């Protein structure tokens, strides 16, 4: 508990991490309070064809889209989708990747190699391509996007956990605990996990940003949730045919994505600086 407070205190002194925290708070607020904060909450599914492609004004703060719906309101509801995708996809990747990394790191020999090579298989092709293949196969929808992202992101967790577990195994305290007869289970949960919590937390934060970007890319390519879902990536794709006239239509969701991902990246960097200064200096593999 003291450790957590210590971390928070250190974090608070890092200005950029604070900015990140604020941005994330804004995102969460937008998502949770969307019905309250939006000016036209019905525009998530309501159409007003006669008002399409209006420039930003007093009634429509960020203008209207191709169906005459309010861009600002749809942006707020889009935040919900963004958070949902990020949380579930990263959470699932964590739940898959961490155990795999632990097992592979703890044991030696070919089962461990097999697991790591399996993760290589998923890393061999760019995550975006694999996610496209899965989403296209299963059909464009929200659950399928989340599935595609989870299935392709877990190797990052596995690798980090594997490397850290292997490094820890050589630590004297682990060796001695094992020598004292502690079971692998006890060893892992009580001793290894707490020590690898830091890299996992850091990777989760960075993973949120990365996943949100990939989800937006899938939405842009038409493989995300179908219309009229106000997903940010899809909105950008919709706006293209109305450029350069309706530039706000394309700019707004992009800025939203940017601020969101920036928030998670800044927080992740701050966490990394605080939790594991050692990581900051080594050219760690990132993603």
């Amino acid at each position: 508990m003291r450790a957590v407070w210590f971390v928070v205190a250190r974090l608070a002194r890092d200005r950029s991490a604070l900015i990140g925290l604020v941005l994330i708070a804004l995102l969460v607020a937008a998502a949770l309070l969307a019905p309250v904060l939006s000016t036209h909450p019905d525009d998530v599914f309501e159409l007003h064809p006669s008002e399409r492609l209006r420039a930003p004004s007093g009634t429509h703060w960020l203008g209207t889209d191709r169906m005459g719906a309010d861009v600002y309101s749809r942006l707020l509801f889009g935040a919900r989708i963004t958070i949902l995708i990020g949380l579930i996809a990263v959470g699932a990747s964590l739940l898959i990747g961490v155990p795999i990394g632990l097992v592979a790191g703890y044991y030696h020999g070919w089962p461990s190699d097999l697991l790591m090579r399996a993760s290589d298989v998923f890393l061999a092709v760019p995550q975006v391509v694999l996610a496209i293949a899965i989403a296209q196969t299963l059909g464009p929808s929200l659950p399928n996007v989340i599935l595609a992202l989870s299935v392709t992101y877990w190797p990052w967790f596995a690798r980090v956990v594997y490397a850290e577990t292997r490094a820890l195994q050589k630590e004297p305290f682990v060796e001695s605990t094992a020598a004292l007869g502690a079971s692998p289970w006890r060893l892992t949960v009580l001793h290894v996990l707490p020590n690898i919590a830091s890299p996992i937390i850091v990777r989760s934060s960075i993973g949120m940003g990365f996943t949100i970007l990939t989800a937006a890319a899938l939405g842009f390519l038409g493989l995300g949730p179908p219309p009229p879902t106000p997903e940010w990536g899809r909105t950008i794709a919709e706006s293209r045919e109305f450029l350069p006239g309706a530039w706000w239509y394309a700019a707004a969701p992009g800025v939203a994505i940017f601020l969101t991902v920036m928030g998670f990246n800044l927080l992740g960097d701050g966490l990394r600086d605080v939790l594991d200064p050692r990581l900051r200096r080594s050219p760690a593999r990132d993603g």
Partner: protein
Amino acid sequence: MRLLALALHRLVWFVPTLLGLLVVTFVISRVVPADPVALVAGETATPAQVEALRHDLGFDRPLPVQFVGYLARLARGDMGVSLFTRRPILDDLAHRLPATIELTVVAMLVSVLIGIPLGVVSALWRNSPFDHALRILTVSGLAIAGFWLGIMLQLLFSMRLGWTPLNGRLPGYPPTHLTGLYLIDAAVTWDWATFGVALRHLALPAATLAFPALATLVRFTRAGVLDVMQSNFVLYERAMGLPRPLIVWKYILRSALTSTVTQIGLLFGILLAGAVVTEAVFDWPGIGTYAVSSIVLSDYNAVMGFTVWAGVIFIVVNLLVDLAHTLVDPRERAS
């Protein structure tokens, strides 16, 4: 010695890893409910005609049989024929690979030639306004959606200012085919008009692709330089009164470069992933758009062919990077 062991170890796993990748892709591509045979038969074909064509192409045999058949042909170097373009996959890949290579190399050059100096300068003038501005830029670099950046650049430079074309590699027919890299082909044949046009078409996509790579490079170069600057032997040299430029050149730059080498693998990953989306935005006729359209059209052979190619490249690059990493980082060597 350890290096050799690592290399051999990875090589032993190369084939099974590739095989695993192929199985996964094969299953995914075949499980697709859409039927590419319909595309070949044409929209006016009757169901009976489609079935006849399916039999001709061998797609009515059980899946494991099809997979084994594919592997056998692959071993002979035959990747099959694209259901969509009706041409051998190897030809299609060879046709489109230069486009992606040209884009990626130019983006890589841009990010390296701009990124490393910026990173060094940023570290040397640490905490200056310049450094702060650069840090904002680098954080943004990894937070901007690549496809959105491309669209915004198009909006500004193509649509509003008219400085660059909107998309594509060249508006008409390419220069004499030597390498498939238009810049080189045009330069070698002294076709400077085409060279200029190709360069203008490259400008926006390369900038879009390079941005995240640039950001990463600046960050890591800066961190690497800072590390070295604080290291003991540099402090010693400064205490001894050695001139700063000499220190910079002798130690800092060299180690910055070394750490960058290990970043190439990371860079490669970023660039390849970015290439898919960048090619989609700029309608660049490379491997990225080929992969996406093959998947979307359920062009089985093309998807498998692309996966084999990408898999081999990635596994090899990963291996090289791991080897380089082991060479460079003494901590890893000891483990």
